[in-house]
Every structure is written in structure tokens, then in C-alpha cells.
């Protein structure tokens, strides 16, 4: 009874988070198209900024969470930390793909090129390959524990790429503009553009949080099911007949109990 109540409360919180995400993102899109002024030099293409920058931020954030989860897994061998890392890696792959695509769509009208082998773009592409590698080592490791360990090592080493991506525009001569929000002298863009960007950043960060909650719940249930199937498979026949298998799993996937 208590578990059902806490599950309902947790579901309500997730639903609230989802609704808040939709509201903030809707406001962000409105501001990006209506409130924010057109850039004099770039015209409408500059509005890609309001989706491109949040995607880059989420790619960084996702990799940072992979790093935290990987360190936690290597330190405590905690299945929960592994789930956190692999859930974030999947989202990181999605958002890194989107930052590359939106960057390419912005670069074409401004640089007259879909792609340039310059530092910022190349290091971001490396991050994309790190996310792919993260899932490949899991898939090809053989057993789950070894896969989680290899992936955690890659998640820790791969996180070094994030500060390199961020600093690439100052360390090397690149086509990509230098940071204008995290500039040392403060944000270097009009207030209306900055407000629009901040709303979009907030909305997409909420989206990341919502997707992370859903994804980690799925992974929790998946792990519990795998353990349950494994236990049933290796238990003596009399036990499987006499006892219900271990690891009770909530019927409601969205309200899965944490271990």
C-alpha cells in the first residue's frame, strides 16, 4: 500500500515535470521565432542558435552525468550508477547527433560549407564516436558486468573531451565563434536574445531531466527482469515450482521501484 502511494506520488511528479517541460519549451519556441530579433548579419539562420546551443549544453551535461555514473560504478560497483551512466549515454548520443546536424544546417548558409575539419567540430565529432564506442564495448564485452566495467572506463576517459571541446575555440584558430554567453567579460549579446536563449536552455534541460527519469526507470525494470529470469533459469526445478521467483517487479513500468 505504501509502495503504491509512493509510486503514485512519483508518477505525479514525473507528469508535473513533463508538463513543465512542455510549457517552458513552448515559451522558448515562441520567443525564438517572435520575441527575439533577427540578426542583422545572419538573418533567420541565426535563430538556429536557440536550438543548437541547448543541444551542445545537453551533450556536455549528458557526458558529465556519464562521468559521474562511471566513477560511481567503478568505485562502488553500484548497478544504480551504471544505469545512470548508460541512460545518460543514450541521451548524450541523441543530443550530440543533434548538435552536429543543427550546426551543419547553420554552417551551410553562413560558412557556405556543411562541414569543416576545424577544432570545435572535430572534437564534437569525437564525442559522438565516444558515445557510440560506449555502447559498442557494452555489446561486445561478453557478459554484463564486464561490459559495464569497460563502458565505465570509456565514460571516465571520454569525459576529458568535454573541456577540450569547450576550450577548442580559444586554444586553436577555428571558424566556430568564441563563447558569447560564457565570455569572460559577461554575455556578449542583446538582452532579448539572451533571455530567449536562457528560456530555451531551461526548457531543454527540463526535457533532459524528464527523459533521464523515464530512461532510468526502464533500465531499472530491465535489470530486475534480467535478474528474475536468470534466477528462474538457474534455480533447482523444485524451487521454481515451490517458490515465486525473486526480485518482485512492479507491474507499472513507469512507477518501477528503485533497488
Amino acid at each position, binding site marked *: 500500500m505504501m509502495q503504491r502511494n509512493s509510486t503514485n506520488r512519483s508518477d505525479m511528479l514525473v507528469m508535473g515535470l513533463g508538463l513543465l517541460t512542455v510549457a517552458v519549451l513552448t515559451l522558448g519556441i515562441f520567443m525564438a521565432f517572435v520575441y527575439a530579433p533577427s540578426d542583422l548579419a545572419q538573418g533567420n*539562420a541565426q535563430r*538556429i542558435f536557440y536550438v543548437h546551443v541547448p543541444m551542445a549544453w545537453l551533450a556536455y551535461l549528458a557526458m558529465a552525468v556519464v562521468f559521474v555514473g562511471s566513477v560511481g560504478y567503478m568505485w562502488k560497483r553500484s548497478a544504480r550508477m551504471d544505469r545512470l551512466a548508460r541512460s545518460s549515454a543514450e541521451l548524450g548520443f541523441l543530443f550530440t547527433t543533434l548538435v552536429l546536424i543543427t550546426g551543419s544546417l547553420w554552417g551551410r548558409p553562413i560558412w557556405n560549407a556543411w562541414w569543416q575539419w576545424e577544432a570545435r567540430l572535430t572534437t564534437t565529432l569525437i564525442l559522438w564516436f565516444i558515445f557510440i564506442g560506449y555502447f559498442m564495448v557494452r555489446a561486445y564485452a561478453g557478459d554484463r558486468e564486464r561490459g559495464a566495467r569497460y563502458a565505465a572506463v570509456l565514460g571516465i576517459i571520454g569525459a576529458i573531451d568535454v573541456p577540450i571541446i569547450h576550450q577548442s575555440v580559444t586554444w586553436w584558430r577555428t571558424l566556430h565563434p568564441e563563447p558569447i554567453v560564457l565570455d569572460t567579460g559577461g554575455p556578449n549579446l542583446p538582452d532579448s536574445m539572451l533571455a530567449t536563449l536562457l528560456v530555451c536552455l531551461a526548457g531543454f534541460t527540463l526535457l533532459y531531466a524528464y527523459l533521464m527519469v523515464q530512461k532510468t526507470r*526502464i533500465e531499472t525494470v530491465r535489470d530486475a527482469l534480467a535478474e528474475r529470469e536468470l534466477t528462474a533459469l538457474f534455480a533447482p526445478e523444485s524451487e521454481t515450482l515451490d517458490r515465486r521467483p525473486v526480485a518482485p517487479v512492479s507491474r507499472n513500468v513507469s512507477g518501477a521501484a528503485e533497488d
Partner: protein
Amino acid sequence: MDDNLGYLFAAFAVTWLAIAGYLLYIGQQVKGLRDEMQLLDDGDDAAT
């Protein structure tokens, strides 16, 4: 200048389609897990 509207539209469309696709993918995973749980529960009920 107006030509750039196509790139703007493409960037937003790709982003939202990818996010919508990912939400659908997650929904399919939830459905698959629910089916699997049901199957295991049915198996347990039959065994007891």
C-alpha cells in the same frame, strides 16, 4: 536572406522529429517490458 528560412525550418524540424522519435522509442520499450512482465507473471501463476 529569405533562403535561410529553409535552414532554420530544417534545424527545428530535425530536432523535434528526433526528440519525438526518441519518445516513441521509449514508449515501445515500456510496452515491451510490460508484456515481458505479464508473461513472467503468467508463468509464475501457472507454476503455483
